[in-house]
């Protein structure tokens, strides 16, 4: 097997991985960085992010506000020390991207412009039209070309981490073009492998978002945290799940039911006004909006489409000019994919899976419990998103914590040496054998595409917007069955060059691990909080028993072991999570209480 010796291996070349690699290169140009990605960097799913990235810049805004929005938005499941660190660094991280050329939209005076986003009290979302993630990713990728110490492994598919002496010391990867394995030795490994939205069927995620890094870390004993919190985005294209960014509502779009009524006012988000108002109505948080759509469907007030019930996203009143200037990609999606002119007609939308709040547990320093392994971005759970992520916090999460992971790893590698090369290479070749076994088996009959379909359907029915123990249990049982059947896989394509049948099979293996962590974490949380809502006697938040992070540990041949961990609270005690007029009243009351102590 080829061996490449690096100091830091970064898995993933999305926003997180690129930012981490640049941080290592800047911290110490003498360190060799291996940047590994299963697709060319600019194909990474960060590219699809539309809306923008949060960072406090306005005079009437403050870090406290951003902190409060994030913690309340996360239904108090955020680690507040991490949120404090985060909000203080957002604007500088975004400015750094500006210095590298990111074409952020501007105000007439040449300063950065910001837009409104759901759950945010003041406009603080930096945007580059509705191609924010695209521009961030291309800026980072192109900037990374300046650093000779970054050695890219494009289209290398990681199959495993190499762990020896209790430390992570490298990764094993398949070169997709040849099918050959490489052992990328490293003193530290940073995972920036993104989310796991593909465990569900209808979702906004790209085909590559299959939770690989989460599963790799999990199999090596690192816990997956808060996996039950999967975010449904309220405005997705029926069928494909493609996203209509929240910026549509930030710019003033309405959500209507089949009677043309702005139904959100019936769900504690009103009053309904003409102008968008932060944290009111359409600018409420995603979990609340998705839940409201679910209820409208039960009340028979939704619009039927061939792909299920929908509500209307109404952008007509914004006018063609503004639509094309601020939301060009949205116009393109509506026109090309649905044959709808958003300046003239409403767009049918329904909730779809969008974001994985949970992930590999990482602390404020981006360290996982496995020494030498760091995790950041969507694959990590570092505590900033809690039970519900606010839109535009993630694009800035990936650069704030991507940078930090790079800095941390660069420091750490000065303090450690790799173990004996023979033992590392032995572990690497064991990993190779395991991955090859998936394709070389000839006795199986199962197709991974069938398993994937059954898994995603089962996740949707058991771990959807609202959940019951019976349905979640059924999903857990189904997943156990699929895991059994996965052992009897038949990968028909036995070739080496660009064998995407084989890689697809490995991805289904990752997905099944992650799906089990989601379903079991959900089943065990007997309360409703953020994106985890139950209908079977646990409709309320239960801070006495569940103001806790879920930790799911991998159990070989068994179901995940679930443990709990305290949430770190520094200054915001759990309160009522209210929006609209009720939210304003709640905020006034908190202010008063604070003044009186």
């Amino acid at each position, binding site marked *: 097997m080829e061996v490449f010796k690096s100091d830091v291996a970064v898995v993933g070349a999305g926003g997180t991985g690129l930012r981490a690699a640049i941080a290592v290169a800047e911290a110490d140009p003498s360190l060799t960085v291996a940047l590994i990605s299963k*697709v*060319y960097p*600019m*194909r990474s*799913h960060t*590219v*699809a992010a539309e809306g923008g990235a949060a960072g406090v810049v306005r005079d009437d805004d403050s870090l406290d506000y951003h902190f409060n929005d994030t913690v309340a938005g996360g239904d108090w499941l955020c680690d507040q020390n991490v949120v404090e660190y985060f909000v203080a660094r957002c604007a*500088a991280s975004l*400015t*750094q991207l*500006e*210095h590298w*050329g990111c*074409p*952020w*939209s*501007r*105000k*007439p*005076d*040449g*300063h*950065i412009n910001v837009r409104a986003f759901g759950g945010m009290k003041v406009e603080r979302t930096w945007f580059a039209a509705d*191609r924010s993630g*695209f*521009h961030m990713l*291309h800026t980072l990728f*192109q*900037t990374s*070309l*300046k650093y000779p110490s970054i050695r890219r492994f494009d289209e290398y598919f990681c199959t495993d981490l190499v762990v020896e002496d209790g430390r992570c010391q490298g990764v094993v990867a398949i070169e997709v*073009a040849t099918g050959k394995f490489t052992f990328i030795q490293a003193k530290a490994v940073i995972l920036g492998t993104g989310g796991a939205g593909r465990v569900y069927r209808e979702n906004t995620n*790209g*085909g*590559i978002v299959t939770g690989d890094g989460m599963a790799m870390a999990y199999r090596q004993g690192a816990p997956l945290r808060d996996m039950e919190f999967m975010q449904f985005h309220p405005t997705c294209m029926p*069928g*494909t799940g*493609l*996203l209509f960014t929240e910026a549509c509502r930030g710019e003033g779009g309405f959500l209507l039911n089949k009677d043309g009524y702005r139904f959100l006012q019936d769900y504690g988000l009103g009053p309904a006004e003409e102008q968008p108002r932060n944290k009111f109505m359409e600018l409420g948080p995603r979990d609340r909006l998705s839940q409201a759509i679910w209820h409208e469907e039960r009340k028979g007030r939704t619009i039927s*489409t*061939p*792909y299920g019930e929908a509500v209307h996203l109404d952008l007509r009143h914004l006018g063609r000019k503004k639509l094309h200037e601020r939301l060009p*990609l949205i116009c*393109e*999606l509506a026109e*090309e*994919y*649905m044959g709808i002119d958003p300046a003239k007609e409403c767009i049918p939308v329904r909730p779809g899976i969008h974001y994985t709040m949970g992930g590999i547990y990482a602390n404020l320093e981006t360290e996982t419990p496995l020494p030498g392994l760091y995790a950041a971005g969507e694959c990590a759970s570092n505590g900033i998103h809690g039970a519900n992520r606010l839109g535009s916090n993630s694009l800035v999460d990936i650069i704030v914590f991507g940078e930090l992971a790079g800095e941390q790893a660069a420091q750490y590698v000065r303090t450690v040496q790799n173990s004996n090369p023979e033992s590392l290479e032995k572990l690497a070749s064991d990993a190779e054998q395991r991955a090859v076994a998936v394709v070389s088996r000839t006795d199986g009959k199962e*197709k991974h*595409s069938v398993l994937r379909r059954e898994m995603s359907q089962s996740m949707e029915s058991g771990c959807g917007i609202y959940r019951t123990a019976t349905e979640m249990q059924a999903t857990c049982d189904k997943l156990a069955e699929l895991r059994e059947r996965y052992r009897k896989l038949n*990968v*028909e*394509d036995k*070739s*080496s*060059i*660009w064998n*995407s*049948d084989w890689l*697809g099979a490995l991805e289904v293996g990752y997905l099944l691990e992650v799906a089990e962590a989601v379903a079991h974490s959900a089943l065990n949380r007997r309360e409703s909080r953020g994106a985890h809502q139950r209908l079977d006697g646990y409709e309320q938040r239960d801070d006495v028993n569940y103001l806790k992070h879920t930790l799911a540990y991998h159990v070989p041949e068994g179901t995940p072991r679930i443990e709990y961990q305290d949430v770190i609270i520094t200054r915001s005690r759990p309160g009522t999570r209210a929006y609209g007029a009720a939210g304003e009243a709640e905020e006034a009351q908190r202010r008063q209480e604070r003044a009186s102590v």
Partner: protein
Amino acid sequence: MSDDNKTIEMEVLRYRPEQDREPFFQTYEVPFEDDWSVLQGLQYIKDDLDSSLSFRWSCRMAICGSCGMMIDGVPKLGCRTFLRNYHSGKLRVEALEHFPIERDLVIVVDDFMEKLARIKPYLIPKQVRKLEQGEYLQTPGQLEQYRQFSTCINCMLCYAACPQYGLNSGFTGPGILALMHRYNADSRDGGRDQRMELGHSDEGVWGCAAVAYCSEVCPKEVDPANAINQNKMGSAIDYFLRFVRPRGATG
């Protein structure tokens, strides 16, 4: 959307270097809905008919640039081309032209990636600014000077369309020249002279024969032909200016 059971014949170019001596076409009968893209047709083939077919894709929304392919001889994104528009009930899908085939619809993109790196596609600041000084000021008008050229998704459709690139793969080609122009035209940037070393040459803007098919196939209205044209003018002006002002001076 779903009415009677419609099907379409997809003729797909196959080539597996380990077993096929040369590329050939394989035909698949694909049932489809009106809103299905060509990519969805290929996914159906892969999941349900023939798992050995390889192609690149990810975002499904015309932004990651993975799924460029020849569809009835025209370079297009598979995820943004719809089966319903092929009325004859038949369509032909091939790997992007002018690139070596790795396997099936997957092309070798090394050449593109190397050229991309060569033009220094990053901001070379006119004036270095510290983070504490905040952002560079750039008015919407200044942004507009390069915005369009910054939206290239690296899908390489324009390379498949470019007869010049087909004849001489040394030519830097439309997408990357547009990207070079993107940085040159950015009010924050001062790296034009460094980039134009390459830009002036025959590999650069002068390699272009002004066919402009590149702009026609571009799915993102980048208009690379326009970028190249502007640079030809810029390049010609530079050529004369180099006699009247010291090299490296910024104007």
